[in-house]
C-alpha cells in the first residue's frame, strides 16, 4: 500500500491513542524531577553533579521510550494493510517533537553556570534514546511478544549500569565535562547513535517468513 499524506493523517489519531502514554509520561516526569532537583533543593552544586542528573534524566526518559512500540493489540494490527515500518515510524514521529520539548525543558532546568556543553550532551541523549528505540524495534522484529517494554527496560537499565562500571575510562562514554576523554567519548557516542539508527532501520520491515527467536516467557 502506498503511503500518502492522507493515509498518515488518518493513521495519526489511532496511533496517538495507542501510544503507551503512561510509560512515556512517567519517564518524562521522572526525568524532569531529577533535572529540577538542584532548583528544588537550592543546593550549590558543580558541573559534575549536573552531568550526573542529566544522565539520570536521560536514562529515565529512555526507559519510558522502551515501551514505545508496546501494542497489546499487536496480533490484530499485524493484519492491517499499512506496513509495520510506517506505523513504527509514525509512532516515533509523534513522540519526537514532545521529546525535543522535554529535552529543552530539562536542559533549561539545569542552572546555566553548571550546564555542560549543550551540543555534546544532546548528542549523548539522542544516542541513548535511539538505542532504546532500536532495542524496542529489534524486540518487535525478532520476537512475537506484544509488550516487550518491561523486559527491555530491565535489560537497558542493567546494561547501562554495567557499562558505566565496566567500560574502560578511555572510551569516555561516561566522561565528565573537562575530563581528558570528553571529546573522544562524544565521537563514540556518535558511533553509538549511528549503530542504533542502523539497527532501528533494519528492524523496520516485517519479516517475510516467521523466524521466531524463542525466549522463555517470564
Amino acid at each position, binding site marked *: 500500500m502506498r503511503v500518502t499524506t492522507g493515509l498518515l493523517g488518518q493513521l495519526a489519531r489511532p496511533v496517538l491513542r495507542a501510544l503507551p502514554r503512561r510509560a512515556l509520561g512517567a*519517564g518524562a516526569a521522572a526525568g524532569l*524531577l531529577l533535572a529540577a532537583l538542584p532548583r528544588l*533543593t537550592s543546593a550549590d552544586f558543580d558541573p559534575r*553533579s549536573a552531568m550526573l542528573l542529566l544522565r539520570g534524566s536521560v*536514562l529515565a526518559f529512555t526507559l519510558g521510550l522502551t515501551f514505545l512500540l508496546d501494542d497489546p493489540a499487536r496480533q490484530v494490527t499485524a493484519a492491517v494493510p499499512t506496513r509495520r515500518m510506517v506505523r513504527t515510524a509514525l509512532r516515533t514521529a509523534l513522540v519526537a517533537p514532545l521529546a525535543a520539548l522535554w529535552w529543552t525543558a530539562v536542559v533549561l532546568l539545569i542552572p546555566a553556570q553548571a550546564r555542560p556543553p549543550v551540543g555534546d550532551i544532546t548528542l549523548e541523549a539522542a544516542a541513548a534514546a535511539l538505542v532504546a528505540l532500536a532495542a524496542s524495534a529489534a524486540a518487535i522484529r525478532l520476537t512475537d511478544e506484544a509488550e516487550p517494554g518491561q523486559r527491555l527496560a*530491565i535489560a537497558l537499565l542493567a546494561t547501562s549500569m554495567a557499562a558505566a562500571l565496566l567500560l574502560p575510562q578511555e572510551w569516555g562514554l561516561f566522561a565528565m565535562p573537562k575530563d581528558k576523554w570528553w571529546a573522544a567519548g562524544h565521537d563514540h557516542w556518535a558511533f553509538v547513535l549511528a549503530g542504533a539508527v542502523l539497527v532501528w532501520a533494519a528492524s523496520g520491515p516485517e519479516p517475510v517468513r516467521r523466524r521466531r527467536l524463542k525466549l522463555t516467557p517470564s
Partner: protein
Amino acid sequence: MSAVLEKAPPAERADEQRRSWAAVLALALFEARKLLLRLPVLFMFVLYAAWIGWTMRDAWTTYPALQDVDRATQTGPLLPALAVLLCANQAVLRSRRQDTDRHFDVLVLEPWRRTVAFALSVVPAAALTALLVAAQFTWGVLAPGSVGHGSVGELLVGPLTVLLAGTAGVLLARVVRSPFAAPMLLVLAFFSTLFLGAVPGGSDGSATRWLVPVIGDASSKTLPSDLLGRPAAWHALYLFGLALTLALAAVLVNGGRTKTVAAALVVTVGLGAWGAVGQAAKVSKATTDARVLATLNPAKVQSCARHGNSTYCAFPEWMPRTGTWAKVTDNVQSLAGGTAAEEKLLVRQRVEARYGMDGDGAIEPSTVPYQVTVGTRWGGSRVPEFAAAVSSVLVMGSEKATESLCDGRMVTIMWLALGWQSDPLTQLRAVRLDDGISGSAIVLSPTNPMSMTAEQTTVVRELLAAGQNTVTPKVKAHWAELTAPKVTTAKVAELLGVKAPTGADKCE
C-alpha cells in the same frame, strides 16, 4: 431427576491448610529457580563474580587487613541486587501481563500466599550472594600475610542488600501494578541519592547517613578493627528488619490481613527501627578514647617482639607481621657501616586514628632516637617506604632529624634503602612520588617525606647499577665521612667511586 445436596461436604480445614503451605513452598521454589535463571540476574551474577576476581586479583601480594576486606565485599552485590529487584518485580506482575490473574481465584492458593511465595523466592538469590561474599572473604583470609579481624555485620550487608532489593521489588509490584514503575523508581531513587548524598551532609554522627544499604568511608586507610567505630551489627539488623518489613507489607496489602501477619509486621518494624536507632548513635566514648590513645600513646596498647638486634612493637592484630618487617630492617642494616650496623632499633607501628574513617591525617615523625615508624599497610611501595625510613634513621639518628636533611647523606639513605633489593630500580620508582627515576623528586616514607635532587638521583642510579658487591665495602669503609653533616653529593660520589655530578646541592 434432580439431586439435592443436603449438606456441604465436610471441610478438612487442617489438611487444606497444610496443602496450601506445601503449595506456597512449591511456588517459591519454582519462582526462585526462574528468578535465578533470568538473563539479567544471571548476567549480573556473572559480572559480580568477575568483579570479585578483579578486586581480589592482587590480594596475594598486598597483605590485606581483614577489617578492610569485609567492607570491600559490600559494593559488588549491588549488581545482582539491581537485577533481582527488577526481575522479582516483573515476576509478580507476570500474571497481570499475561492476563491470568482471574484464574487464580479458582486455585486453593490465596493471592496473599502467592505473595509470600514470591517474597520467599528471592531468598536463594540472597543465599547465592552470601556464598560469593564468603568466597571473597575467604580469599582474603587465605592470602599470605593477611591480618586483622572481619566483622560478621559488615559481611552480611551484601546478602541483605540483595534480599532487601528482592522484597522491595515484590512490594512495589503489589502496590503499583504498572510494568514501568520499578525501573523508573529505581533510576529516580538511585540518581537522587547520588546527588543528595554528594552535596552536603555531615559525615559523622549524621543519623540519615546510615539509612542506605552500603555506606562507604571518606578515608581509605587501615585501622585496627576495634577503632573503626562502624555500627556494622546495627546496620545489618536494620537491613534485615527493613527487608522483612517490606515483604510483610506486600503480604498485608495483598489481603493477608491475618493476626499473625500483623503481629509479625509489628515485630519486624520494631527490629528495623531498633537497628536504625542503634546505627544512628554517635561513636562511643570508649572508641573515641581508644582512638586518641592509639594515636598519641600507642605503647600502652601494643605488644612488642624481638627479632635479631631490634624490637618491633605493633597493635596486637599486626604482631604476625613483625617478622616481615624484621627482614627488611636486617637487610637495610646489613648494608650500613660503623655503629649503625649494630644499632638496636625500635620499630613502632603508628596510626592517625583520631578522625576514625572520616578523615586522614599525617603521622608526625618521631623524635625518639633510633625509633622507626611503620604504618598499617604493607606490600607494594610500602616496603621501600619503610626501608627508606629505617635507613634515614640509621644515617640521621632519628626521624625528626630527616626534616632538615639537605645534603649528600640522602645518597647513602637511598642506597641503604634500595641496595639490597633484587629489583632496586623498580623500588626506586615506587618510593618516589613522581614514579620516575630521573630528576628531583619527593621520597615517601611512613611519616614525613624526604626530597632528593636530580644530582642525587643520578648518583643513586649509578650506585644501584654498580651493585652491592662493589659498593658495600666502600660504604662500610667510609661510613663516618658519608654520614657527616653537610657532606656534599659530589664528595659522596667520589668516596663511593662513581662519577661525581656537577652542580651544588639545592633543595626545593
